[in-house]
């Protein structure tokens, strides 16, 4: 009998505390927003989150699980926003009841491992890059490469192609660019976050690609510029659409973004590769945020928008410190218009 009484008491206490806890959660305004997805903008989102929390007290919990994972999570509504380096088409957005907007811009650069070649010294073009990745250009002293680099003596060395082994937004942009500039690549391989690579070795993540390139003499790979810069990898010049050889720099990423047609692109499905303009870096890309078009929890959705609104206003310097580039002003105006138009609040 005594025993039963104790059990009942414990039960009562337990339920009372649970109720109290639940009441607390629903009564107070939210303290944190959650997001998941692309790893490319993760360092920046983390930095922004830290600054934003110091100012407003709102926490951002962002999990860099990859673009594909971010898409799955936002579809399942387990997070307040998803992030992806690969934009969804207007049709895909409609099917899944999502909206998207770009947040930040970055560049992708080829990296090489050749004796006596310094960063930014080697010149390549999109079609030559495609030839290398198709396995058609096999040696570094191939006429196609030497013709671009008359001032350097290139060795008769095998080219070892390194690509991403995981599916990634970086691969998506890289293969999209190759498809744009080389019909053979488009027909034979195409573009996606993961493709059937005709040749080469696969490394996981930027770090995997970079370490393979550094290990293998004669290796070539592609990584995000921030990663190449921080790790002092040997990046190359590329010839852009206007025909100028250009270095991967923040100002050339900016130029590519500025030369894009933000106004007439439906749902921001905008890939900044092979942009016109003589200062545009050819493999530039934006990172995107995905949200539910129909917001069931208005407090969460509004908190997310407030966060990115703040980031557009005050986040540019933090972005530049980490080798990202902020969006052009006209794009930000358009994004804010789209928020007002496309999100439904319940």
């Amino acid at each position, binding site marked *: 009998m005594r025993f039963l009484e104790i059990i009942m008491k414990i039960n009562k206490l337990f339920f009372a505390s649970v109720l109290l806890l639940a009441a607390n959660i629903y009564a107070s305004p939210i303290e944190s927003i959650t997001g998941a997805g692309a790893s490319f903008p993760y360092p920046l989102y983390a930095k922004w989150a830290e600054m934003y929390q110091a100012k407003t007290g709102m926490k951002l919990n962002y999990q860099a699980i990859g673009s594909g994972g971010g898409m799955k999570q936002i579809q399942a509504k387990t997070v307040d926003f998803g992030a992806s380096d690969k934009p969804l088409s207007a049709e895909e957005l409609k099917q899944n009841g999502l909206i998207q907007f770009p947040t930040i811009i970055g560049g992708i650069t080829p990296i090489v491992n050749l004796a006596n070649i310094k960063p930014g010294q080697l010149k390549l073009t999109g079609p030559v890059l495609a030839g290398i990745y198709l396995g058609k250009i096999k040696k570094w002293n191939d006429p196609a490469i030497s013709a671009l680099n008359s001032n350097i003596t290139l060795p008769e060395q095998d080219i070892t192609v390194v690509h991403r082994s995981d599916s990634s937004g970086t691969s998506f942009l890289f293969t999209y660019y190759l498809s744009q500039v080389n019909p053979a690549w488009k027909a034979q391989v195409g573009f996606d976050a*993961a493709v059937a690579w005709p*040749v080469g*070795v696969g490394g996981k993540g930027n770090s995997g690609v970079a370490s393979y390139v550094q*290990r293998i003499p004669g290796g070539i790979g592609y990584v995000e510029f921030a990663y190449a810069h921080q790790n002092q990898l040997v990046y190359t010049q590329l010839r852009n659409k206007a025909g100028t050889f250009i270095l991967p720099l923040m100002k050339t990423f900016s130029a590519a973004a500025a030369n894009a047609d933000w106004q007439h692109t439906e749902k921001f499905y905008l890939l900044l590769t092979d942009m016109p303009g003589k200062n545009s870096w050819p493999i530039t890309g934006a990172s995107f945020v995905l949200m539910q078009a129909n917001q069931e929890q208005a407090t969460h959705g509004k908190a997310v928008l407030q966060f990115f609104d703040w980031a557009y206003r005050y986040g540019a310097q933090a972005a530049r410190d980490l080798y990202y580039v902020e969006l052009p002003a006209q794009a930000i105006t358009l994004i804010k218009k789209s928020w007002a138009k496309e999100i439904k609040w319940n």
Partner: protein
Amino acid sequence: MELNTDLIFRFITQIFTYFVLLILIAILIFLVMGSLPAIKAFGLHFIVSTDWNPISKQFGGLPTIVGTLTTSIIALLIGVPISFGIALFLTELSPTWLKHPLRIAMELLAGIPSIIYGMWGLFVFAPAFGSHVQPWLSQHLGKLPILGVFFQGPPLGIGVLTAGIILSIMIIPFMAAVMRDVFAIVPDMLKESAYALGATTWDVERSIVLPYAKIGVMGSIMLGLGRAFGETMAVAFVVGNTHILSASLLMPGNTIASALANEFTEANGELYSASLIELGLVLFLITSALLFFSKLLLKKLAKYEAK
């Protein structure tokens, strides 16, 4: 009423045991259900196809299945003789004062997390292997008829052979420890009788210890093979991760476990995920088949001996 504590105890332990069985069945069901779309789309063709194209949605498991088997077999070819030698030395030849430190070293080696082996493999072993050993292999063995195709290609440092060697280093401590234990239980009387008859250490090992400890040695090999099949991170670092199947052991390849680790998180599209899960199912079946055949073999051996 008096509680029958024995009965309760039995009941609880029984539940624990059934729980294991339940989990096994649940995993199998999950794997089959998850891979159904791929099984429907590709059928048996999946295990012989070399396609792996996320864009055209054509998937085949042959390169990863071959890679899993090849790396594991290389690991065994290198690992078994060395483990055998280690166990022999530790039980028969080593001076007593050296036995203890050697055992501890082996246990430490067994306790190193696999990702450390992967990093060591990529940053230390692969560059050295690529610049000193692989050029020699492709220059000398690459020219041989028939066997040559296994040793051709650029010296990348990473690849199927490298993965096999790293795997062998990882499984040696396990196999050697088990072999040492089973060698140690061979009755001294048997060994000493053989020595008394004038047998050398090798004679004793081959004709007395090995037949006596056969089951244990088989068990240790199976343990090593099982670990090699499933090893993920260390292999992902050094195998090269490509779905292109090549005959040469110096070229990059892929294994099932490594492909899953690399691609599962961002596999979008039902067929892509299902194909990866089917690879998992294949690995599960390979491991089960291995267990089944080793049990069968041991049974046959036992029968043969009883005669």
